[in-house]
């Protein structure tokens, strides 16, 4: 059995309006991470990393050596962060324009290698670039290494440089993020007949998985699977949710569970019309008796960090006897929850999807929620 021993999240509830981008939009951010970003001497993903890679985490790793192998995976979403893919940034005087003076550490594999080394994760280090699925997609790798290759501890860090002119222009141009000009008629929501879409958000998550945790774990990690689907447009999603279905069924098979075991779903829940259709169709096709929620309406879409970070946020809420409803719903919905309900017992399914036809599913059984 693999356990989720520890997790840390750094979500952004504060919002600002970025008006001087080509695509003005609201974002969830943490202003302290942008101190001196324009000088190129500091960079937001590093400061976000420091928020989840806290001293108690490193002390835990140091003071509890594991008998087997230790690995580290950086779920980074892309191979290079904002400063090294700035072609989209057409406003070099923009409020959020910055270019790193340290391009080497914005190449995510080098950033990951430095973090792994500082954590003593000397047996394995890799970096994942599967866009917004990254934070959950790497759990398939965690599972494989721990079940088949003698790893007894895996550390996952999910972080990306989410809020910058490049990213805002990319999502704005593709009409994916909710633009300011549409706010009078639209609000962030998911699976709703009226409101749809998301804002970009800044966030990070760190998780430690172990086979023999020295202290009480947070959850059993039951299985994970990532799938692609037969679709010609790698920016789109099939309406029948084939990718999601394959991911969910794959995770259930690995975990040796039945669809009826899943009682709670943390959806990818971007709220885009395309994702609403695909994800909802997949869930109602595969599962039987469940409730679903989404976090992107509260903390924005944190891209690579989203799948893992939102799972942590839900685990936090479950401890408070809460499954939160999806904000800004306009109709009553008892499945894709339009209102808060108490904690639900059973298996938790977490979903994420990434551009490039990547669909990830992970199954957990929260401790005390068996």
């Amino acid at each position, binding site marked *: 059995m693999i356990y989720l021993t520890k997790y840390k999240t750094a979500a952004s509830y504060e919002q600002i309006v970025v008006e001087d981008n080509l695509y003005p939009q609201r974002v969830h951010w943490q202003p302290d991470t942008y101190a001196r970003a324009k000088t190129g001497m500091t960079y937001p993903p590093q400061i976000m990393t420091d928020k989840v890679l806290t001293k108690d985490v490193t002390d835990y790793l140091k003071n509890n050596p594991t008998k087997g192998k230790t690995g580290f995976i950086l779920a980074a979403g892309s191979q290079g962060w904002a400063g090294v893919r700035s072609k989209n940034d057409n406003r070099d005087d923009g409020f959020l324009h910055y270019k790193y003076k340290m391009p080497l550490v914005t190449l995510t594999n080098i950033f990951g290698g430095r973090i792994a080394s*500082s954590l003593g994760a000397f047996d394995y280090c890799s970096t994942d670039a599967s866009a917004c699925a990254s934070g959950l997609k790497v759990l398939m790798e965690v599972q494989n290494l721990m079940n088949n290759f003698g790893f007894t501890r895996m550390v996952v860090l999910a972080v990306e440089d989410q809020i910058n002119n490049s990213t805002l222009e990319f999502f704005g141009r593709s009409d994916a993020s909710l633009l300011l000009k549409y706010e009078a008629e639209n609000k962030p929501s998911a699976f709703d007949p009226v409101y749809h879409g998301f804002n970009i958000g800044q966030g990070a998550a760190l998780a430690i998985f172990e086979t023999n945790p020295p202290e009480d774990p947070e959850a059993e990690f039951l299985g994970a699977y990532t799938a692609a689907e037969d679709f010609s447009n790698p920016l789109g999603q099939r309406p029948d949710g084939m990718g999601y279905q394959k991911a969910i069924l794959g995770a259930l098979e690995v975990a040796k569970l039945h669809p009826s075991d899943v009682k709670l779903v943390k959806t990818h829940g971007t709220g885009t019309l395309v994702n609403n259709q695909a994800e909802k169709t997949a869930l109602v096709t595969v599962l039987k008796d469940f409730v679903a929620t989404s976090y992107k309406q509260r903390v924005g879409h944190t891209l690579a960090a989203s799948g893992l970070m939102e799972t942590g946020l839900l685990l936090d809420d479950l401890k408070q006897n809460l499954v939160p409803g999806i904000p800004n719903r306009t109709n009553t919905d008892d499945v894709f929850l339009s209102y808060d309900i108490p904690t639900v017992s059973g298996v938790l399914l977490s979903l994420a999807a990434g551009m490039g036809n990547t669909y990830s599913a992970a199954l957990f059984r929260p401790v005390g929620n068996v």
Partner: protein
Amino acid sequence: MDLNFVELFNKIVDLAKPVHAAKSHASSLDAELQDLGIDSLDTILISIYFGDIYGIDEETMKQMRVTTIKDLQDFLLSHATHTPQTIEEAMGRVQ
């Protein structure tokens, strides 16, 4: 000059290394970077920080080849367009 360069060097190492990485601090100008566990990536980052502190352009900093902290200090002073007078002033340029 009042600025203690060894102290400044140690502070820049703290900045350049990952936050929880083990850090060896220098005790004299004669200390060699290699003996302090300063690897090639650390050296690049340290040179970027020092370039900003001493007002030296990146192209010049790329030419930096040093073995000891004294070598680093000499290089910086020979190319500086700005010379900080205190540790606080120096760190204020990079934090």
